């Protein structure tokens, strides 16, 4: 296995005095696709928010490319090459499709992705580029959200609930695009409710339960029973 690009060491996370994550340890290797699964409210989104800096942590609880970033500001972390496709897409409603993509490119990192490349990946977006982002269908919005993250040319991209609320056909399209995205050596973390899909695209999987890692393993090696147990704590 190659060098870890991201390491979490004993990560705790809080919302006020409510603790949502308890000592999570996790690594992502260079070029790997990692899946994170878990029930509603298990803490998956919280985990991604902690990594991306939206929730402040202790500096050394999150290491990215050897730097301790746990206490960094989110914009600094973004500049370092960590991008996120947030849960529920969260496009900027006052920005057009093209502007949403352009704002993703603000960090100005060198790399293969640019506006044209994103349009090549999702041709429908080029047709709609001047439209308000809210007028798109859910699937198209998800494409914008992904394109927006890619525009930053990140080293590690994180997807939160990549297929949530999307029709099966669209989910299929999105997943079809995935290899083209992570193929170029980019590492990825994918949070997914659909376990079958999650296992299919990832090399390793973590399961969270109530803010703790309840399972970790190679995606092709974990069994359905393991997952069911890890998911609900069902014995």
């Amino acid at each position, binding site marked *: 296995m190659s060098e870890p690009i991201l390491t979490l060491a004993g990560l705790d996370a809080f919302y*006020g005095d409510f603790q949502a994550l308890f000592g999570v340890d996790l690594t992502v290797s260079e070029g790997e696709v990692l899946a994170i699964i878990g029930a509603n409210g298990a803490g998956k989104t919280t985990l991604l928010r902690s990594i991306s800096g939206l929730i402040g942590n202790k500096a050394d609880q999150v290491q990215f490319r050897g730097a301790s970033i746990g206490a960094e500001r989110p914009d600094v972390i973004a500049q370092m090459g960590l991008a996120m496709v947030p849960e529920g897409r969260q496009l900027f409603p006052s920005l057009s499709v093209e502007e949403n993509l352009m704002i993703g490119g603000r960090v100005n990192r060198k790399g293969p992705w640019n506006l044209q490349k994103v349009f090549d990946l999702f041709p429908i977006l080029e047709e709609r580029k001047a439209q308000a982002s809210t007028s*798109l269908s859910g699937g198209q919005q998800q494409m914008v959200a992904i394109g927006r993250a890619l525009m930053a040319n990140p080293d590690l991209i994180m997807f939160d609930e990549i297929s949530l609320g999307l029709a099966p056909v669209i989910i299929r399209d999105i997943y079809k695009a995935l290899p083209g995205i992570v193929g170029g050596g980019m590492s990825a973390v994918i949070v997914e409710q659909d376990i079958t899909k999650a296992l299919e695209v990832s090399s390793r999987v973590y399961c969270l339960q109530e803010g703790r890692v309840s399972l970790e393993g190679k995606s092709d090696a974990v069994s359905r029973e393991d997952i069911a147990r890890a998911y609900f704590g069902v014995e």
Partner: protein
Amino acid sequence: MTQILQLDGLSKAFGAVTVADSLSYTLKEGEALGVLGPNGAGKTSMFNLITGTLQPNSGHITFAGEDITSRSAAHRSRSGIARSFQVPQPFTHMTVFENAMVAATQSAGLRGHEAERLCIDVLEQTELLDKANDRAGGLTLLNRKRLELTRALCAKPRLLLLDEIAGGLTEAECTSLIATIKSIHASGVSIIWIEHVVHALMAVVERLIVIDFGRKIAEGEPKAIMDSPEVQAIYLGIEADV
């Protein structure tokens, strides 16, 4: 049995997202109904429509003989509809006991010792009595969900709406939760229960509906529903040989 709740062609959309699409069904007094559907199907939104946190674009809701479509959430609560929130909504700066008291005094309309007595009893039943003096903001997720149930029960509901309260429970906890809900049901309270933990649901409900994209796609006896290939495909993600 008389009917207690009737949804009649209920529709609601947020821009392009349709969360309720001509939704209609009836619930009989004392009945327990299970609701299934994939994430984002509109299940929670349906509860929001019934409790009045959302206003439908069209359609009607009748509760206990009264058309409540345009009544306030508060009115609906006082007339006997109680719910638990999927994402718990505790009064974070109040203690657990005070959270319960809000429901007992405001919704159930009880006063003084009567209200306090009810809260104590319910807290005992939901195993939160030990935490009665804790600030609700500091509870773990599990206890927050228990608090949701506690508050709903302290409102002395005729209709109880439960939104994913079994998620994340251990087997033992799940069993005791099922027992609790069964006993609530046995006391004559009508129940609608959204749950992904299917076996828990199956242990309690008498009827099941399945929702996808805001549409009711199946309704009927639980076992039959679970066995239908359509439900298997949509809900469990088991794709029938594509």
